[in-house]
C-alpha cells in the first residue's frame, strides 16, 4: 500500500489516487453487506449478532434538544418584584423596571429564535424534512 505521507491532501486539495481507490473499496456497500452477513451466519459457531429489528437506517432523525437552557431575565424580574414590594404593586411608580424587563424579554426572545441552527449542524427538524424528500429506498415498489 502507499506510505502514510500520501494520506494527506495534495496541493489541489484532493487525496492521492491510491488512497481514493482504497476508500472506495472499503466504503462500498458490497463490502459492508459481506461483513454483516458473516456476523449473522451460523457457519462458524454461534452468530455474533442477533438483531431484533432490521439492520437498516430509518428515514428519520431523533428530535432532541441539544443544550440545556437556563432561565432568562431573572435579575430584571427580581428587581421588578423588589420594586413592587416597596410600592404596593403600583406599576406607574415602577415604570423604569417594567421597561427594563420588557427590553430584556425581547432580547432573549430574538436571541432564542436566531441562535437555533447556526452552529454548522442541521437541526433534527431540517434533517427530517430533507430525509422525507430524499429518503433511503428500502424496497423497489
Amino acid at each position, binding site marked *: 500500500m502507499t506510505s502514510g505521507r500520501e494520506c494527506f491532501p495534495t496541493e489541489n486539495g484532493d487525496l492521492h489516487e491510491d488512497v481514493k481507490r482504497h476508500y472506495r473499496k472499503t466504503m462500498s456497500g458490497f463490502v459492508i453487506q459481506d461483513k454483516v452477513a458473516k456476523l449473522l451466519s451460523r457457519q462458524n459457531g454461534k452468530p455474533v449478532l442477533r438483531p431484533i429489528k432490521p439492520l437498516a437506517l430509518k428515514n428519520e432523525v431523533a428530535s432532541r434538544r441539544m443544550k440545556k437552557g*437556563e432561565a432568562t431575565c431573572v435579575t430584571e424580574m427580581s428587581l421588578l418584584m423588589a420594586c413592587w414590594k416597596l410600592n404596593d404593586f403600583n406599576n406607574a411608580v415602577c415604570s423604569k423596571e417594567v421597561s427594563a424587563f420588557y427590553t430584556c424579554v425581547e432580547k432573549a426572545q430574538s436571541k432564542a429564535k436566531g441562535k437555533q441552527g447556526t452552529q454548522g449542524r442541521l437541526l433534527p427538524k431540517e434533517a427530517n424534512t430533507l430525509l422525507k424528500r430524499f429518503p433511503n429506498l428500502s424496497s423497489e415498489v
Partner: protein
Amino acid sequence: MAASVRHLLKPWTPSLCLVRWSRYNPYYLDPDPSKDACVPESEISPEQKELQELKTVRPIKAALSSDTSSSFNDPLISKFINMMMQDGNKILARGIMTQTLESIKRKQVEKYHKSPAAKKEEIECNPYTIFHLGLENCKPIIGLASVQKGGKSYQVPVPLTDNRRRFLAMKWMITECRDNKHRRTHMYEKLSQELLAAFANEGNVVKRKHDLHKMAEANRAYAHYRWW
C-alpha cells in the same frame, strides 16, 4: 455539510391559489387593509423599503370580511368583539360594543359638563382612548406557568408574550362582566363601568391582575426552575 445541504430547504412557493382559509402556510404574509398615504421615496427607511419589496413578491393571505380600510377600523376593538361573540352572533357582539362606547362617551360628557372649569381638561372623552388605556391597565406583566420538577409541579413566574397579555386582559374583562353582575344590568352597562374603572386603575379586573402579580412575587424563589 449542513451549509451545502441547507440550500435544499428553500422557502415554499404555492402551487395552488388558496381562497380565504384560516390555516395558511407560514410563507404567506398578513394583509394590511389601511389606506397608506403615499410616502415619498426619500423618507422610507431601508427596512421599510425591503418590507414593501417583500410584499410585492410574496403571496398574501386573503383579508377577512371584518377588516375595512376605513379610519374607524380598530384591530384591538375587532379582537375584543370576536372574543365577546357567542355562537357566531357577530351582529349582537358588535351592537354591544357600540352601545358600550356610546355609554362611556355619555358618562364622560356628563362628567365634563358637571365639573368646574379647572378640572375640565383632565377628563378624557374619547371612548376609544379609554378602551385602549383601560385594557393596558388590565394587562399582566408576569404570568405563572406550571413546571414539573422532581415529581412535584410548581407555579413558576414567567414573562408573557404581548399576544398572551392582551388575551388575558380581554378574557378577564369579559368573564368579569358576564359573571359578577346583577341579572338585570345589561352587558354594555357593566362593560362601560368596568372599562371606566380600569381606566382609573380600580375595579375587579385590575384587582385580578394585582392578585396574579402577588402570586408571582410570592413564588419568585422558583424562578430558576425555568429553562426557556
